[in-house]
């Protein structure tokens, strides 16, 4: 399997190879991998890939602290003009 052709985060085109290299380089938590590779920072905000990335980390790192990543508002994307009176 060519790991550079397996897309894990579809919004940001992050591959399995990127993620494994990132973990091997010492970033061993979901927060760190996300922040370095920008997976889960695209349009879907991690709804697609977070569980996959987490599974990849727990497969490689012993004793990772499992906890859900913090959920940040807004829950759904929102127009910049949503709060304007003239909209």
């Amino acid at each position: 399997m060519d790991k550079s052709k397996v897309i894990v985060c579809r919004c940001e085109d992050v591959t399995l190879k990127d993620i494994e290299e990132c973990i091997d380089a010492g970033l061993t938590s979901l927060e760190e991998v996300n922040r370095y590779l920008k997976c889960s920072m695209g349009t879907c905000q991690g709804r697609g890939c977070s569980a996959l990335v987490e599974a990849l980390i727990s497969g490689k790192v012993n004793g990772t602290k499992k906890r859900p990543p913090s959920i940040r508002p807004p829950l759904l994307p929102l127009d910049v003009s949503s709060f304007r009176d003239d909209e």
Partner: protein
Amino acid sequence: MVENKKEGVIIGGGITGFSLALSLAKRNFRDVLILEKSYLASGATGRCAGGIRQQFSCSENIELMKISYPIFENMDDFVQGGYLMLATSDEEFNALEENVSIQNEMGVKTEMVTPEQCEEISPYLNTEGIVGGSYNRKDGYVDPLNVTYDMFFRVKKMGVEVSTHEEVLKVDDGLKVVTSNREIETEKIFICAGAHTAPLLRSIGINLPNQPIKHEILVTETLSHFLDPMIVMMNEGFYAHQTVRGEIITGIDMRHSPSFDVSSTLEFLSKCTKRLSSVFPATRKLKVLRQWAGLYDVVPDAVPVVGEKDGIYFMCGYSGHGFMVAPGLSELMADHAVYGRRHDLLQRLDYKRFKEGRELGERVVIG
């Protein structure tokens, strides 16, 4: 077995901790452990907008930025799109002019610009109500997470040890660091914990006037490149810039009261998006993807605070400018800690200035 002796311990895995570790390692001081209570860059570093500017009003900040700049200019992804600071009243315009003359005197080439020039610099900007601004094309931004994580990879290769999810509970005068799992003996302690620095210093008898103030920020979906500079409105501390990824990162001052709380508010989302859509009408239909908050470690004069007492060194009080000043300040601190050479700037930034009536004063605090 966990090793409990180190030549140096750095508390805080953000930009200050890693810049300092790099500066120390360059001076062959490498038997160092960095302690981070959460994940790397989980504090203010990973929450900031990443702006790098020399447009300050206080000469100490400008001097610090002159030391930091070459370090940022060596980074491949430092984007110098400029900072355009906008005035909507004569008073703000005059203040900008005053700042620019201080900057020019110190060799920083900021210029005053007319509303027409603002439009040329940023074609999508709504210049209604703008009386003018100051512009420095060398200012810019860099992704704070990439910078910090790259520093992490570098210091690890140089032999520095990094431990995450290990919280420092106490630092004592006997150069002992007590964490959630162990006690570590060391020769030098460096506290680089942002807003959490002042509370740690209390146990060694240093009381700083620092206050943690929440500042909020949001990011939109990506769109094609349309905005070069960081846009700053001097009233309400509004700023917006577009990253190389295409997203817009923007914030506005909410004047939150001192607290360690970093929760997001609906009031911010409403106020900031309203302002963004009037400054850049083209963004109206853009989607906001995420909002979050971080802490400014604020001191009365908004200039960094440093100090040393019996082998315990600290850097804090950045008042919102930590990411950009940390690399420069770390170089000075490393010279002090390793070679005993204390740069004159460290003297001026020393924490005793508050008690000795040597307060400085920075007016340009944004966000």
